């Protein structure tokens, strides 16, 4: 006979927070949604890499009689989006969503939504042209294509900062997904650090540093001892074949993108140390 008190421990329910993306749908027709997704992501089908999403229907142009949930869910999964719930769905459609296995959220359950900047480039592949680099894919501006339904993507809240407190050795690679990266003991030549946000390196910056990996052009790279092999922000990169500029070599420096959407350049500026 199993001990009843022991059985309680087989599953434990706890409260936790989740950083999640929302997808606002203006239409529920799977065919039209498929076209819109293809226009937006056709060249980057793996962009979302299995991220969970809440489907938000506040912007539905008109509420249909019924929704083919199977079609919508399989379409989203094909683009590696994992739908986990719905919100602001017209009342008569809620039962269908429940039966499709989606959680039904109240409108106050979610907070902190922020608009996403245009996704410009995949994390792994810097464009083959050095600064200034053209953005390889531009999603269709929502206004231009008349009533064409476009799932509008909103950015997930930022993930906690990833902190690395041991020196990063040659051949090692760290990826701070959804947030900033802090290195407390520097990095060796031949190592690589990637962050969706900014990079802060205390100690020698000697390898490859790629910030704003998902296209965040406001990301920066900060270092107390500047000497990398390659730096990149949102895909705009620079190598140092002719050496590190004297004004910043071995000193505190920051790297940031300047210029407009079409013509970004990297600038590297020495920082004042007190």
């Amino acid at each position, binding site marked *: 006979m199993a001990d009843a008190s022991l059985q309680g421990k087989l599953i434990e329910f706890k409260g936790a927070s989740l950083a999640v993306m929302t997808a606002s749908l203006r239409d529920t027709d799977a065919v039209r949604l498929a076209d819109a997704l293809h226009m937006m992501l056709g060249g980057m089908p793996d962009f979302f890499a299995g991220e969970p999403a809440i489907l938000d229907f506040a912007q539905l142009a008109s509420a249909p009689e019924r929704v083919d949930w199977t079609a919508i869910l399989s379409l989203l999964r094909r683009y590696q989006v994992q739908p986990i719930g719905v919100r602001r769905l017209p009342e008569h459609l809620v039962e269908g969503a429940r039966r499709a296995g989606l959680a039904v959220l109240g409108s106050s359950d979610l907070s902190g939504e922020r608009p996403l900047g245009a996704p410009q480039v995949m994390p792994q592949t810097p464009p083959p042209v050095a600064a200034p680099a053209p953005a390889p894919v531009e999603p269709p501006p929502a206004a231009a294509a008349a009533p064409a339904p476009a799932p509008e993507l909103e950015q997930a809240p930022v993930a906690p900062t990833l902190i690395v407190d041991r020196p990063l*050795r040659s051949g090692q690679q760290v990826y701070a997904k959804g947030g900033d990266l802090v290195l407390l003991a520097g990095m060796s*030549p*031949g*190592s690589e650090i990637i962050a969706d946000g900014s990079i802060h390196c205390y100690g020698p910056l000697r390898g490859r540093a790629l910030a704003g990996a998902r296209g965040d052009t406001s990301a920066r790279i900060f270092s107390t001892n500047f000497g990398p092999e390659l730096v990149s922000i949102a895909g705009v990169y620079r190598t140092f074949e002719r050496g590190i500029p004297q004004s910043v070599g071995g000193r505190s420096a920051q790297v940031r993108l300047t210029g407009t959407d079409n013509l970004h350049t990297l600038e590297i500026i020495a920082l004042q140390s007190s």
Partner: protein
Amino acid sequence: MARVIVVTSGKGGVGKTTTSASISTGLALRGFKTAVIDFDVGLRNLDLIMGCERRVVYDLINVVNGEANLNQALIKDKHCDNLFVLPASQTRDKDALTEEGVEKVLKDLVHMGFDYVVCDSPAGIERGAVMALTFADDAFIVTNPEVSSVRDSDRILGILQSKSRRAIEGREPVKEHLLVSRYSPKRVEDGEMLSYKDVQELLRIPLIGVIPESDDVLQASNQGTPAIHLKDSDVATAYQDVVARYLDEERPLRFVAYEKPGLLKRLFGGK
């Protein structure tokens, strides 16, 4: 409690086997029961350096495969009572090494009462090198004062931090010791070589010693005697210092300063 020491480098030809032979001898001379194992399957040379190549009957692979037991394979060193050598196989290759097999060998050595087990790693970052470092408690990173050796040492440090059992199980990490070998203070002075301080600054691990470049090493391996046995040799003294520092004794750093020889010496020869 027994300690497993790996002597590794990434780069080839920097002095791992020379170091393994001398360190294990040094520990044995201090009274500790010590075993030294050659992990370079197929390219064995620890037996040559130790001078026991004609007494090899069974090897590490035989033991891993259960074809012989440790007592049959371990070779007692001719110079030193407390020291035993476990040679590598020459006819097989590194695929014959398994993690479970190596783990069992090390556990059995501990049960037999060994205080220290020195693992002589092959060059590279493949299976043999990874097997040698997997169960290590201490690591001697042998580095020559030149750029490619430093980079390879950095690489092997990264692998040590990710593939050792201590790292995987989240225990206290492997203790890293930098050993700069084949050091020539004159060449450092001339700017041809990195100084030991440069190497330490690049690798950022504690320095356990500097071994000077010397013809004595070649002589010692030809004789089949670990360099630490040589009389009146800077290399021998340097290795003794390393063993002492490993055992927490203080020793000043020697053989790192370049002294320009006097006029007479320069006229009549000498370095």
